[in-house]
């Protein structure tokens, strides 16, 4: 048996297969299918300072090998998350990563600070940097200086290690990756969804109430791989690869491109057992190929 134990920023994870934010709620529903302690980690739906109702429906649409979503960060807010959701996750011994967002640097910081009270439960904070900054209008992950400042501020306020989750909707992913590394991030995760839309040709209305939404699923895997590959050339930080992952081969591709771990997103909707199947198959795959740990694959793509 290969050893799937994976270390990111000094923290040990049972395996490199995590659940992506927004695709596993707060873990409750998935306990119907498996034990949360069997995952590398679970990343919660984005938590904001105040509860948010989210966008009106329609919120989702199926596209060719992908889907659009505009959920609008519906969440219970950080206080209720701590009082109602953390105890459940603790009881199930979930390795907990909390995805955080805010409309300003200050709001990100306040959510992160509030999480300090449960720092025994929260192994990492993941900053959802695709949120638009109220002041500049631009997403935190589009302007390097904003991105860097955000990470720096959150790092100051919390001892919990921080992952910067990058948006793919940028001209140069390496610029942003370098900026958050300089800002002190402990790891990168990428990619969040691509901006997309669809229109109902019968009603002439957009398929999403929010008009545009985020594209995820197998359709975007090639984009995610290219971004992970490029970022891994530019920074030393561990990278958690996300985008269209469905099976063990997808995970190997991400690792060869430089990812140290991965997050499974949309695939959970089609088969909630996906992360379990992947860890199982990864073990077998490594064994068959003569590897003893997934870490041996990181960045091992052969280019020449």
């Amino acid at each position, binding site marked *: 048996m290969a050893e799937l134990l994976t270390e990111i920023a000094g923290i040990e994870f049972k395996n490199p297969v995590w659940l992506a934010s927004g695709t596993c709620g707060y873990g409750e529903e998935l306990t*119907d299918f498996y034990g949360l302690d069997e995952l590398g980690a679970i990343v919660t739906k984005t938590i904001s300072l105040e509860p948010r109702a989210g966008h009106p429906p329609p*919120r989702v649409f199926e596209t060719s090998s992908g889907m659009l979503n505009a959920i609008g960060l519906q969440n219970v807010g950080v206080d209720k998350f701590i009082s109602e959701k953390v105890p459940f996750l603790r009881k199930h011994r979930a390795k907990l990563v909390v995805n955080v967002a805010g409309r300003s640097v200050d709001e990100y910081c306040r959510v992160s600070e509030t999480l300090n009270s449960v720092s025994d439960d929260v192994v990492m904070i993941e900053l959802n940097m695709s949120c638009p900054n109220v002041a500049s209008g631009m997403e935190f992950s589009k302007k390097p200086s904003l991105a860097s400042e955000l990470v720096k501020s959150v790092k100051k306020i919390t001892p919990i290690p921080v992952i910067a989750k990058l948006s793919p909707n940028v001209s140069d992913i390496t610029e942003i990756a370098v900026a958050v590394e300089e800002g002190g991030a402990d790891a990168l995760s990428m990619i969040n969804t691509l901006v997309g839309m669809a229109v109902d040709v019968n009603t002439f209305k957009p398929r999403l109430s929010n008009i545009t939404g985020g594209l995820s699923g197998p359709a975007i895997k090639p984009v995610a791989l290219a971004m992970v590959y490029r970022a891994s050339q530019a920074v030393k930080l561990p990278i958690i690869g996300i985008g269209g992952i469905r099976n063990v081969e997808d995970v190997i591709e991400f690792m060869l491109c430089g990812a140290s771990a991965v997050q499974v997103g949309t695939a959970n909707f*089609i088969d909630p057992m996906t992360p379990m199947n992947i860890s199982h198959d990864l073990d077998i795959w490594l064994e068959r190929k003569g590897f003893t740990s997934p870490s041996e694959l990181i960045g091992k793509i052969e280019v020449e």
Partner: protein
Amino acid sequence: MSGVYQAEIVSNNSIDNEAYLLTLKAPEIARASMPGNFVQLKIEMADGGFWRRPFSVLDTDGGNIKILYKPLGKGTLALTKFPPGKIVSVIGALGNSFSFPSRDSMIILTGGGIGVPPLYNLAKHLIKSDYNPRNIHFFNGAAGHDSIVYLEESAELGINVYAVTEDGSMGIKGYVTDGVKQFLNGMSKTSLSNEPVMYACGPMPMLRAVGLMVSEYDVYCEMALEALMPCGFGICMGCVVMARDDKSVEGFSYKRVCREGPVFRADDIIWETDGKKWLNY
């Protein structure tokens, strides 16, 4: 508690009016399922379709579940080609279920198009629980004679069955709500001791009409909603409807059709805000 099961197709046949009847060997789901519950079927399909497709449980039969479906798009069309013996991945039983009415209610089932299955399931369960079939009135609405489904099978339960067609090619002419209104109007004239209780399922525009009708007639109503469902078991937050919620600051919250539903009390659904409909209807 639901699970992912590998189910063998027992049969998959075209029955009347373009509808197909699919029987799956899925004992765990058969055992757990209640009227209103649904399953998520994995269908390999072309054109990059990859979500599962949700189907109501029509009936259970020993370790089998039955699904009545209409081939509409890439998933359901591909499904019609699935041969007996093929193994399909199915998640279920999912969602909540209809509550049972008090014994002496006048039970009105209002189904449109492919909304018939959960109501048939409910009728069958009620009869099994010794409700009087004569107190059950099933309004089955469709565009026309050719698209009405499972009418005879419903009649065989011994309940009152009414066909309502938009083109008048069968039964009452009009929308299914027109048929129900005629009935309710008749009822209020005769003094019936039985309190009417309604159950509805069908396309959202129909359910919206039902919602307006029951509030007008002040009839208790539960309805099984439809929604696009990426997951079906509550993790994506994609399938929500706007529902009254006294506990929230806004007075409403978005509830998951797959988890808090598909069955909702009609008076809990908010169909429009500020005069704007919140769905593409």
